[in-house]
């Protein structure tokens, strides 16, 4: 051990070990840090320019009077403080689209969760053909919302649409779903549930499979009904998965857009316009700063709802 100086190849030279110790820099750690930043750099550069930068810029723009005519000279615009936000709050159309977005949320999230959970529980119980059913129920998720909206628009036609034709077989006279201010929005929600429940179903199914079968089997042997087993064993154990599902589903419904764009153009009488639709529309009118402010309010709503849902998750754990 005293011969370190004569064995320079083994261990680090004594000369180097002193400064290393005093600065707490371990060469392997430093190598790691350098390598990590080399690996992180391409992503971070793209991310800063095309995601993080625009997120911050959007906030800044929302306090200005930027219009489409100023785009080539964004520095020439003026700071107007909270004017855009004040205008939004008193804008009847913005109030309407906010209300619509809340309706999408409160109708869409529970319905999607319920359908996804029901199908997942059923899938978890069956042993044969499980993969087949799982793939089948997942099909709508991978398809373009725009394309399936085109298809549903025709299926839902008042006269000759397949939905009403099939309802007529059982004696129901279906309405023109997309033509009335009361039915258009719920109809879009039903279509969105059809499109989206599959991805939640897969997540719920994976969650169900982490619950040991012995527990529910023991309960059933003790005479608990299937419902009681589900209510008192499955649901509580699935709680984290369900809350995670609620978070991502809520984020999705708060951004509702394509279905309304293709199927109803936001009508009739703005009854299906969402906040995202409003933002896109204001952008089209050239009101860039106003659009940014609306988008930021939506972002704020998503952040608040997500934090609230994660707090629920923490509290119960």
């Amino acid at each position, binding site marked *: 051990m005293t011969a370190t100086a004569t064995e320079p190849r083994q261990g680090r030279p004594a000369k180097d070990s002193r400064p290393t110790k005093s600065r707490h820099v371990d060469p392997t750690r430093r190598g*790691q840090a*350098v*390598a*990590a930043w080399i*690996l*992180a750099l391409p*992503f*971070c550069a*793209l991310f800063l320019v*095309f995601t*993080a930068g*625009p*997120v911050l*810029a*959007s906030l800044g*723009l929302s306090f200005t009077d*930027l219009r489409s005519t100023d*785009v*080539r000279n*964004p520095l020439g615009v003026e700071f107007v403080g909270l004017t855009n936000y004040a205008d939004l709050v008193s804008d009847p159309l913005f109030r309407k689209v906010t209300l619509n977005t809340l309706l999408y949320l409160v109708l869409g999230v529970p319905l999607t969760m319920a359908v996804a959970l029901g*199908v997942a529980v059923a899938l978890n*119980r*069956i*042993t*044969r*053909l499980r993969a087949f*059913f*799982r793939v089948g129920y997942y*099909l*709508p998720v*991978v*398809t*373009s*919302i*725009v*394309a399936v909206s*085109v*298809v549903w628009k*025709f*299926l839902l036609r008042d006269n*000759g*649409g*397949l939905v009403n*034709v099939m309802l007529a077989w059982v004696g129901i006279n279906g309405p023109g779903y997309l033509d009335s201010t009361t039915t258009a929005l719920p109809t879009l929600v039903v279509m969105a549930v059809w499109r989206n429940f599959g991805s939640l179903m*897969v*997540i719920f199914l*994976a969650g169900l499979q982490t619950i040991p*079968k012995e527990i529910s*089997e023991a309960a059933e042997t003790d005479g608990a009904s299937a419902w009681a087993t589900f209510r008192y064993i499955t649901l509580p154990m699935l709680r984290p998965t369900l809350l*995670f599902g609620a978070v991502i589903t809520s984020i999705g419904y708060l*951004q509702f857009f*394509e279905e309304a764009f293709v199927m109803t153009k936001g009508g009739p009488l703005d009854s299906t316009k969402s906040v*995202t639709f409003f933002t896109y529309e204001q*952008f089209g009118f050239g009101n860039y700063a106003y659009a*940014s402010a*609306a*988008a*930021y309010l939506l*972002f704020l709503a*998503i952040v608040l709802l997500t934090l609230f849902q994660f707090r629920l998750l923490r509290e119960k754990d």
Partner: protein
Amino acid sequence: MSKTQASPRLAGAMRAPGWLYAVMAAGLVLVVIPFVWMLLSSFKPEAEVRAVPPTWWPETITMDNYTQLFTQLDFPRFFMNSAIVAVAVAAGNMVFCSMLGYALAKLDFPGKKAVFGVVLGTLMVPGVVTFVPLFVLTTNIGLTNTLPGMILPFLAGPFGVFLMRQFIASLPDELIQAARIDGAGELRIFFSIILPLCGPAVATLGVLTFLASWNNFLWPLVVATSEDKYTLPVALALYAVGQNATKYGLLLAGAVVVVIPVLAVFLLLQRRIMQGIAMTGIK
């Protein structure tokens, strides 16, 4: 394997009742009907598409809708635009996300927590928040109405980092330590040891980002200002709400062209996709 692992007694006790299969099958029919109807109707002449009551099986089978898509409308171009954008986006995410994913999963570096926090935080950012500044940016650097303008903003997404980090974290640390003892540099460890092991996860990420990009709508709608830069969903949406909205057969054939390729990709690779969803969904 898994089927034979359950003991016969338990398998018997847990066997699902027949009615459950019937309900599941009925539900599946409801889920699949729109696709079947879309496909069948796309081969009907315009008059039959509009027929009241509607027909299931086309009485006259015609390719007219498809020939029109590919001759009167520029669908081959839209198809190519979609394919180029989706392949580029998938490739970019596969490369950049696995690099950062490895750094976040296995390496120690200052700023690690901040980077991961910011990346995860952006999963919450709605698309509409970034599009105004992005449009100002792309206009000023001359990328509006170009394919790179559609690709660049999605080349490195937070979802891929999350997926790759989760996967790489599950690889054994001993592997990396052994390579370090053998004198391999950190970058060499990533490229010649970790990356080859990431095959399944990288493939999953590639498929998922390809699908997401193929179906992406809002940003291509904003950035593509002339028809030759439309992607398939943009072209279809603008026809659906525009002048051609009266040609039902044409729109349904368009929907088939948008949907069928991704359904094919999905059915071929569904196992991988399901794993990816379950993995990122659960943890």
